[in-house]
């Protein structure tokens, strides 16, 4: 539960990175993939996932296509060129953030 709060702020980065690596994905697939990758540690709630997907789509980071799967239609998300550029920036920010947090919380590590 506590760790979910930490992940929340990184939801957009997680989605973009996942789509960059896996290609096109649909909403439910993203939730399952994140759950599997984090060994159940991080569960994306649908109430957070879809608004974020729609926001990233509005920002031009993602494109959408639909396909008929069995008896129903499915919406697939893919990362755009702008989205890929955003992933690079966000990953660099994330790495810097982790480094700074380590320095702040464990100053001895840097001194060692």
């Amino acid at each position, binding site marked *: 539960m506590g760790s979910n709060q930490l992940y929340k702020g990184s939801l957009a980065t997680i989605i973009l990175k996942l789509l960059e690596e896996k290609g096109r994905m*649909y*909403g*439910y*697939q993203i939730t*399952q993939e994140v759950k599997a990758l984090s060994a159940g540690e991080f569960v994306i*709630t*649908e*109430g957070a996932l*879809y*608004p974020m997907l*729609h*926001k990233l*789509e*509005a*920002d031009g980071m993602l494109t*959408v*296509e*639909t396909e*008929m*799967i*069995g*008896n*129903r*239609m*499915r*919406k697939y998300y893919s990362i755009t060129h702008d989205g890929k550029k955003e992933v690079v920036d966000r990953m660099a920010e994330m790495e810097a953030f982790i480094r700074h947090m380590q320095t702040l919380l464990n100053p001895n590590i840097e001194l060692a």
Partner: protein
Amino acid sequence: MRRVLTKEEVDDLFNFCYFNKVPYYDVQIEVVDHLASAIEKLWETNPDLDFDNAVYLVSQQLGGQAGLVIIKQEKEKALRKEYRLMVWRIVVEFYRFPKIILTAAVSLIIFFSLKNIQNDAWILSPLIFSVSAFSLYFLYFYFPKHIKIKSDGAAFLLNEVLQNRIAYKTLLVGGYIFGISTRLVHLSSVESIVFSILFSLYLVLLYADCVVLPKKVKKHFYDQFPQFKLA
């Protein structure tokens, strides 16, 4: 054998969305697929679970009716932002070379007309009347007939957001300009310049909202849902 949803069960999920305050087909598609995928996953471990109970269980994961409404509201917000960005890009084009020549020419024509014709009302009245008549015609006749995406009575959120945007822009802003212009029938030079610039901006916005934006939105929609183009 892996249990999957029947056509009737998928239809029931669309009805479920409708009765839980998500009446728009373009939002329902995603929610229905999510619920259906989660139900099928549930059936992998519990194949005897009946459909109604499965719907209840997975909809609770979505946060029940409140969760569905949040998804709809956030989608609405994202669409408004997307349209705003599209219009902004069009407006910027009209204030850059070469289109700025046209924008400047319209402003100058309005300005010199206001300067050279003694009674400003002679200029303002036809301008306001034309824009108001166009707005009403566009909103109540042209939009429903030529722009609104229709399919078997399904409602689309992107129609609602687009129509509301145009209604707000054309009627409210147009009405505001009308209100100002009826008070300012004898404009000073500075007022004439400001009015000319603002009115040409209003025309650019009207063009972006009524002509360019609907085309882009329709193209975007048919790119995402090609099956509706064929229907």
